[in-house]
């Protein structure tokens, strides 16, 4: 495997409560470019916690997270935010769209924050992503006017806005019916491998997990199995500044 896109080395996360809670314990995991990885496990096994650690949204109590081989532990909060903005797209179980903004404005937010494109370019790119996800007719609507599946697709579109090499999805189909779940899964599956994009999805859905390239199973915060069902996908994009093109600020 080439340089991992994201790597956890001996990562432990303990919640410092009155009785400390171990969310993730001594996890080693490396995900390369283009992989579609399922993280499974029973409730409370630390799946989401591991996902947030991989997305540098949370910091490990011990161990380290590397993105493109770059250690993130010593990074400032601003540096981690910049890295998330350019290199990581999050999709949560509940769409978490901003209710006051229209669909297209929600998708535009990451691009506007990055500031690399003009207003017209941002609008065009947002419209393009939404069209590819089958939401061309809903761009000017508010999130509350959409169905659950449509909202989740908007959330995926927002995650893709800055063209990040890594998509992290936390139970992306957990609140959807089977048809909408299938749609979202197909989209995530299509994304994986495109231009070397990797998708790591936490899921309870065993059928979905079975259809993914790799399945990492957690129990009590520890990885108990890491099965690769398909060989690593070839990446379609030459690595940029980092191995998978995650630009570092």
């Amino acid at each position, binding site marked *: 495997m080439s340089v991992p896109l994201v790597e956890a080395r001996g990562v432990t996360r303990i919640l410092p409560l009155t009785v400390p809670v171990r969310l993730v314990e001594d996890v080693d995991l490396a995900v390369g470019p283009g992989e579609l990885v399922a993280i499974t496990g029973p409730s409370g096994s630390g799946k*989401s*916690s591991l996902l*947030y650690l991989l*997305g540098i*949204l*949370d910091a490990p109590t011990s161990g380290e997270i590397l993105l493109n081989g770059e250690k993130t532990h010593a990074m400032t*909060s*601003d540096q981690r*935010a*910049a*890295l*998330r*903005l*350019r290199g*990581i797209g*999050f999709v*949560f*179980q*509940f769409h*978490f769209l*901003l209710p*006051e*903004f229209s669909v297209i404005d929600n998708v535009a*937010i*990451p691009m*506007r*924050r*990055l500031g690399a494109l003009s207003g017209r370019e941002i609008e065009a790119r947002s419209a393009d992503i939404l069209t590819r996800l089958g939401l061309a007719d809903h761009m000017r609507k508010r999130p509350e006017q959409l169905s659950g599946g449509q909202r989740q697709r908007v959330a995926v579109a*927002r995650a893709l806005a*800055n063209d990040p090499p890594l998509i992290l999805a*936390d*139970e992306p189909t957990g609140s959807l019916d089977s048809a909408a779940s299938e749609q979202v899964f197909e989209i995530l599956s299509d994304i994986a491998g495109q231009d070397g994009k990797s998708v790591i999805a936490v899921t309870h859905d065993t059928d979905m997990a079975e259809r993914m390239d790799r399945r990492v199973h957690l129990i009590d915060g520890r990885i108990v199995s890491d099965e690769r069902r398909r060989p690593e996908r070839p990446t379609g994009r030459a690595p940029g500044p980092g191995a998978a093109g995650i630009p570092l600020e």
Partner: protein
Amino acid sequence: MRLLLEIALTHVRGRARQTIVSVAGVTLGVGFAIAMAALMQGSQDEFVTTLIDAMPHVQITDETRTPRTQPAERAYAAVEIHGLRPRDDPRGILNPVEALAGLRSWVPGAISAGLNVSGVARYGGTDRGVSILGIEPEDELRVSKIAQDMTSGKFSDLVGGGFAAVIGDSLAERLGAGLNDSIRISASTGVARNFKIVGLFHTGVVATDETMVYVRLKSAQVLAARQNAVNDIRIRLGDPDAASAVAARAEELLALKSVSWQEANESILEAFAVRNIIMYTVVAAILVVAGFGIFNIVSIITHEKARDIAILKSIGFRDRDMRLVFMAEGALMGGLGGALGAGLGAALTAYMGTIEFEFREATEVTHLPVTWNWIHYAIAVGLALATAALAGYLPARRAAQGNPVDIIRGAT
């Protein structure tokens, strides 16, 4: 930045009713602060202007601040003098012609030399204690506003020849005398002369209107039985604020007590300073209270929008971006309240300026004194903005520091 402002605006719009209440609080605070400042400053300015108009800017008298050094004190190191009395008491400014010429060479204003004599005015069997001021009318008109206070006759009629006097209207009323009547004035020296009343004045200052008698300098010197004597030099400056410096220099040159109008009214000016401190403290307190409203609404918004904060941070917004969003909300409310408050303050000030009232003893109608000063607006709006920014900053800092994972976990 525009994106952050848009987010802030959506939050504020989402809480329209509470926002209106908060903005109204700031508006009222700023508006009344400005109106109060305009009134306080107006009354102070009017008082000071009256003071400056009514009295000389610098007054030099034939006194010294410390007793003169005696020859024995100069000759011996240890001398104690008790019961010292001069053989003669020729009070007055020595060499007044030289002193006046010296002053005229550098003082940027008009100078009038005078002689103060105390005495009694008698008319028709009525006696009144008076303060007689001998002046040269031409010079006096340059240093005082007495010409504007004349109610009958002309001040310049004093030069018409003979013994003539211009007296206060209250004094004339007390004596029962009128224009062109002849009153007898006796000085403390025992010299008495009949003076024809050639003018009456009303300054509005009771003590002046009831006791002051203007006569020509020569007439006062006759009453004082002292030829060429001058014991009072009064100066009116182009710039009243220069009075302290002019008084200090005059005192140094003439070795006579020189009092500026500021020194003469030091206690009143101190009282104004204390009043201003109290006023601005109250203004600040009003605006801080208004700031509580903003703090409240921003706190509610940060609580309501905790999930949005977590999402925006997961997207890649920095902590300071989130702080800016909520501080912008506070500043928006403070800015809007400040702008509306400035308008309200201007309207209240304009209205107060039209209010008329009459004093029982005065015949003229008086308006509430108000001053239009952009500094009042700058201070009130600036304080409102600062309070609002602080009120927004405190909840914003807390919201920005929150761990997004905790919020997302809570939401899921």
